[in-house]
């Protein structure tokens, strides 16, 4: 119980802090969205448009910063995020909702795959200490994890899309495709996700392998594993139920955090692959000083991370009875 209260407390404090930082940051940036829009059109707009834009965006508002803050908090509580300036006059929610499923799916699937695969490899490497898997996999993937993933993406596009024509180089689905739940669409979505997913998985798996291996080596020397051997249990059971399950516990929170982070961390991948997710929206929002969009995105990502962490706590409690008791 206390754990949950402490978690909720943390959740609220962090949320408030993030929301506030979120409010302050864009306002500290110089310039204003109207000028950003003018700059975006690279001189193609009539100079008179600046005035129109300022009126439309409400740039020269007379409200004090405190009034704005209170207004802002109120809006957030009611889930009102206003209109995206860089996508004027489309509401922020619409812009975000259009992009969110893509990112969530890609991020979710890749992170889960990378975590599961990494954990499995780490587990086996530690179990067969000094074996081929142990001598090869961890160092190789640790090195790969040092690759800049966006660069890897560029190279992948060049090799697999441009040169070999095996896979599409970008977008979430084929040109002219319709978004629905048909097999054609799902097939398209998968084909288009292969390259971005691959770059993420390959560069993130090393961390999981290493931490799992290290944890597992720790648990393997625990007395309860020796005890399991003494009991004459099947080796698979010892590896999974005794060593593995205890070794995975410290990784769960990390996994949740990673799950939350990729939502924003996909940014470079999405740019490189023209993937229709929220990552790119961030960059766009910042470039256009689109406060409402930026704020909404920040909020969503923070909530995503926090929610993931909360979920991890639940998962931890399910897997680790000691936490449940506290």
């Amino acid at each position, binding site marked *: 119980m206390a754990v949950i209260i402490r978690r909720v407390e*943390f959740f609220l*404090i*962090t949320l408030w*802090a*993030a929301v506030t*930082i979120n409010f302050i*940051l*864009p306002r*500290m*940036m*110089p310039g204003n969205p109207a000028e950003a829009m003018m700059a975006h059109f690279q001189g193609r707009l009539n100079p008179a448009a600046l005035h129109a834009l300022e009126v439309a965006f409400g740039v020269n508002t007379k409200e004090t910063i405190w009034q704005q803050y209170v207004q802002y908090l109120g809006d957030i509580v009611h889930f009102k995020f206003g209109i995206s300036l860089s996508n004027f006059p489309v509401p922020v929610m619409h812009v975000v909702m259009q992009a969110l499923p893509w990112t969530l799916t890609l991020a979710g699937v890749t992170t889960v795959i990378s975590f599961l695969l990494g954990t499995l490899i780490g587990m086996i490497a530690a179990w067969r*200490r*000094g074996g081929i898997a142990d001598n090869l996999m*961890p*160092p190789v993937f*640790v*090195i790969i*994890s*040092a*690759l*800049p993933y*966006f*660069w*890897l993406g*560029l*190279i992948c*596009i*060049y090799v697999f899309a*441009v040169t070999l024509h095996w896979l599409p180089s970008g977008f979430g689905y084929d040109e002219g495709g319709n978004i629905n739940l048909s097999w054609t669409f799902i097939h398209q979505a998968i084909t288009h996700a292969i390259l971005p997913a691959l770059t993420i998985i390959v560069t993130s798996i*090393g961390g999981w392998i*290493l931490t799992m291996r*290290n944890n597992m*080596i*720790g648990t393997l*020397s625990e007395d309860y594993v020796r005890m399991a051997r003494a009991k004459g249990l099947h080796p698979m059971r010892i590896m999974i139920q005794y060593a593995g399950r205890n070794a995975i516990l410290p990784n769960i929170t990390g996994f949740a*955090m990673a799950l*939350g*982070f990729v*939502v*924003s*961390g996909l*940014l*470079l991948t999405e*740019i490189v692959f023209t993937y229709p997710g929220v990552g790119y929206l*961030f*960059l766009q929002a*910042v*470039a256009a000083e689109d406060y409402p969009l*930026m704020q909404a*995105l*920040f909020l969503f*990502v*923070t909530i995503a*991370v*926090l929610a993931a*962490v909360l979920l991890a706590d639940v998962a931890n409690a399910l897997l680790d009875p000691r936490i449940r008791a506290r």
Partner: protein
Amino acid sequence: MAYQPIAIQEPAPSPATPAPATGRAAWAAGFVRIGAALSSNRKAVAGVLILLFFTVVAIFAPLIAPYSPSAEAFAPGMPPSSAHWLGTTSYGQDIFSQLVWGTRQTLLIGLIGGLAATALSVFVGVTSAYLGGMPDHVLSVITDIFLVLPALPLMIVIAAYEKGGGFWVLVGVIVITGWSFGARQLRPQAQSLRNRDFLESARVRGETSAHIIVFEVLPNMVSLIVAIFLGAALYAILAAAGLQFLGLGNPEDQSWGTMLFWGQNQEALMIGSPLWIIAPGACIAALGAAVALINYGVDEISNPALRGRKRKKKVYVVPNP
């Protein structure tokens, strides 16, 4: 039951460097110990060699680079040749020279960004753990907030907000977004040290808190601090490359990240100068791999359980009496 001779292989010999009696030497000894242990770890040695190579290149860049990195002096888009080992950019600059000069900034970002982020992590993590109570609570929440805030977008906001995004802005952004991870790792270790009797023993002896933190606590965490530094340096290198790639650095800087920015901007892969993108990326990867390898080594050193079993098992047969 019968005769039972049993042999236990000795654990890897304890580090040879003696523990010193004075505070400053304890620090030095910590580093020496890690250095000595690193030299016996093959992965770490490989990492150190790569790192040394890049360091030499960075220091002697003016001597190594055949041309000025920014001079737009040659025919654009030349393929590799003996005059231009990696060809030229579409602005007519020598790619190899850019690569050589770019080593400097990339290394500096890794070094300075890593050091600063580590310093902040150590400060927050250790202070928080040592003080305990309310300060600990506040500092932990701050750490967690920074951990939860989406780093890359935050970096983009800050980098965009500071005009031009020069070197120091880049470092600042990296430090702001990169310290919390280390602090989070350090806190529990410092906390577990905090209740070790030797610290209370020092307190009972009458030492001041500052003395205890600096000379009793920290020397015990040298290997973790080194690991955090390496992690932070790797983060700094990759994050800086990402930001510069997005055009959020100063595009006139000489670094591998800006090379990627220009290369991508000029579609180097498509217009026949692929090395413009491949070379700096590969260098970042090599540098990153070096840091990752050293980190891997440090990990094995600080956690004896992880040490490799490369030595062949010697079996002693005890003759039956």
